[in-house]
C-alpha cells in the first residue's frame, strides 16, 4: 500500500526532503540572525512587557498594590 500511494504521485518522495531543506535553511538563517542580534536590542525587546508599569502608566502602579 505504501508503494502504491507513493508511485502514483510524481516526485512525492521529494516532498519531505524539499520541506526539510526549506526548513533547515530557514532555521540556520534564523540561528545566525538570532545570535547576531545586539545585546541592546534584545534587552529592549525583552523589556517591552515591563515598560508600561515603569513609566507609561504613572497613575497606576500595580507593584505597590500587590505587596
Amino acid at each position, binding site marked *: 500500500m505504501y508503494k502504491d500511494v507513493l508511485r502514483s504521485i510524481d516526485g512525492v518522495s521529494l516532498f519531505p526532503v524539499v520541506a526539510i531543506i526549506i526548513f533547515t535553511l530557514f532555521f540556520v538563517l534564523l540561528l545566525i540572525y538570532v545570535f547576531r542580534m545586539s545585546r541592546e536590542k534584545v534587552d529592549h525587546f525583552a523589556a517591552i512587557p515591563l515598560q508600561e508599569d515603569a513609566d507609561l502608566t504613572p497613575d497606576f502602579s500595580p*507593584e505597590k498594590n500587590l505587596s
Partner: protein
Amino acid sequence: MSVTQSKPAASQTIKQPIETFYYDNEIVRKFAIAAVFWGVAGMLVGLIVAFQMVLPDFFLWDGVGPLSFGRIRPLHTNAVIFAFVGNGIFMGVYYSLQRLVKSRMHSNWMSQAHFWGWQAIILSALITLPMGISSAKEYAELEWPIDLAIAVVWIIFGLNMFLTIANRRERHMYVAIWFYIATWITVTVLHVVNNLELPVSFVKSYPIYAGVQDALVQWWYGHNAVAFFLTTPYLGLMYYFIPKAANRPVYSYRLSIIHFWALIFIYIWAGPHHLLYTALPDWAQSLGTVFSLMLIAPSWGGMLNGLLTLRGAWDRVRNDPNLKFMVVAVTAYGMATFEGPMLSVKTFNAISHFTDWTIGHVHVGTLGWNGFLTFGILYWLIPRMYKTKIFSKNLANLHFWIGTLGMILYVVPLYWAGWVQSLMWKEFDADGFLVYKNFLETVTQILPMYWIRAIGGTLYILGVFVMIYNLVKTAYQGQFVKDEAASAPAMAKEYQKPKNEYWHRIIERKPFQMLVWSLVLILIGGIVEMVPTFMIKENVPTIATVQPYTPLELQGRDLYLREGCYTCHSQMIRPFRSETERYGEYSKSGEFIYDFPFQWGSKRTGPDLHRIGGKYSDAWHYQHMLNPRLTSPGSIMPAYDWMLDDVLDTTLTDTKIRVMQKLGVPYPEGYDRQANADLAEQAEGIAQNLAKELDDPTLVEMKDKEIVAIIAYLQRMGTDIKATAKEE
C-alpha cells in the same frame, strides 16, 4: 510624566509627540467572566460524564437522550476547549496585545461583536450537541451553520487584532504577538479544511472526505487544534504574563524566537501519531512519529524559557499564589509535551492507545497547563483591573493546593487504569488463548480508578468555586478601571532602517509578513501530509465486495453518529494478535471508502465494533439497547431505550442518497426515489426477526422505529470483507 528616556531603541521615536490613549479593560473583563462561567459549565459536564462512567444511569431518565454520555462528552470537550480556554485566550490577548503595542483595540464594535458572537456560538453548541446534532468528528462536532458562524467571528477577531497591530506605537512586535498571529492563521486553515462538508439539511451534513482520508484530515486537525488552540496562544500568554507576574524580562528573548519558529513548523506534521497501527499508510505514520519526537526540542525550550524567567525570583513563588499557578502550569506543559512524543513511539502507543492513558495525558494539559495558567492570570489580572489587592491570599493558596491535589487524583488513577486495562487486553494464557475474553472484565477491573478520577475532578472544580468567591470579593473591594489611561510617543511614520538590518527584523516589524511566513511554514507540513492524502482516495486498494450502505444502514449509521457511539467504541482493529483474536480480521483501509465521516474512534471504553456485524442476533442488539445490563451484567453502557420508542425519520433518505452520490458513492442513477421502499423492506425483515427470536409478535411494530436502523448498521459493519472469503 517621564517617558522612556532610558530606553535605547526609543531614541528614534522620542521626537514624536506623546499621545494619551485608553486601554479597553471592559472587553478583557467580559472575556474573563465568560472564561470562568463556561469553565465551570464545561467542568461540571465533565464531572457528570465522569460519574456516568461508574454509575451508567447517573443524570439520566428513562427514554431521554440528550444527557447520555455519547452526546454530552462532546459537549464537555467542546466547552472546555472552545468556551473555557477560548475565552481565556481572548481575555489574555485583549489585555496583553493592547499593552504590547501601546494602543487601544482598533474597534470597540469589533471587540463586542467578537465577544457576543463567540458566546452565541457556545450557546448554540450547548443546545445542538445534546440534541444529537453532531458531525461526529472529535472537537469539530458542531454542524455546518455553526461552523460558518465560527468562521465569521474568527475573522472579526483577526481583523480587530491586525488593525490594532497596524496602529501600534511600539515598532517591534513582542514575541507573544507572533504566537497570537500564528494561532489565528493556523486555526483558520484547520477549521476550514476539516469542516468542508455537504449539507443534507440545516442540521445535518456529510464531510467531503471518507475513511482513511477523513481520518488523516481529522487528526491533522485534532492534533493541531491542541497545538494552535490549547498551546500556541497560551505560550503567547506565558511570554507576557510570567514576566509581568515575576516583574522581570523573559529568560532569553533569543530562545523565544527560535522556540516560535521551530514549534509552529514541527507541530503541524505530528498529527498522524494519533493513527499509529491503523489502516493509515505506513509512511504517514512514520512521519507523525519522527516529527513528534522532534517536537520535544522546541517544547522544552519554551518550557525552560518560561521557568528560567523566574531565576532569582523563586522566593516570590513561595509568596505569590499567581506565580505558583504559573509554575505548575508550565511544568504541566513540560510533562505533557514530553509524554506526547513518548506516546507517539509505536511501542508505547501499542499499549497506550484506546486506553485511559490518553485521557490522563490530555488532562495534564488542560487541567494543568490551560487551567492553571488561566487561574494564575486571573489572580494577577483582576486585582489590577480593579485597582486593588487580591481579597485573600490564603484562599488563593487553598485553591492552588486543592486544584493540584485534584489534578493528581484525576491523572494518576487514569494512567494506572490505562496500563492495567491494556495489559489485560493483551494477556494470553499458556495455551495461547486470551485470558480476559470478555471485554467487560477489563472494564469492571478499573472502575475503582474511575471513582478516584471522579473525586479528583470534584476537588478541582471545588477549587474553581473558591477562586470565583475570592475574585468576586476582590472585585467588590476595588473599583473597576473601564478605560485605563496610558501614554506613549506615536510611532514615526518614516522608519529609518538601520544600515545592517537583517531580514528577520523586517518580518518582526510587519505583522502581515509575519502572517504570511507563519502560513508558509505551517502549509509546508500540511501540504506534505495532505497532498498524498488527497491522492489516496484513488489509491486505497479497493476491495471488490465492499458495497455502499443500504438506505436503512445509512440511516442507522447516522444514528450512530447522533448518539456519539465513537466516544466509547472504536472501529479499527489493529494488526495485533491480541486484537484479531478478540475481534476478528484486522481493519483494511479499503473497507472505509463509503464512511462519511470515518468512525475509527480514539478510546475504547467498550469493545471495538468493526467486526460486530453478524456476531450477535438482532434480538441481542434489541435487548442490549433496551438495557445493556440485560445482555451484559455489569456493563457501564447507558441504555438507548428511546430508540425503541422513536420513529425513524425517513424524510431525508432521498436527499442523503443524492448527497452520497455527489460524494462519489456509486448508488445507481435515480436510486434516491427507490431508497425508502428498500428501507421499509429491510426494516420489516429485522422486525420479523425480532418477533421470532424473542417470541413476541408485537415486536413486528418495531419496523418503523429507530432501533431497526441501528441494528441494520451494526449487523452490516465489517462484514463486506467476509463476503470476499466466501466467494473465494
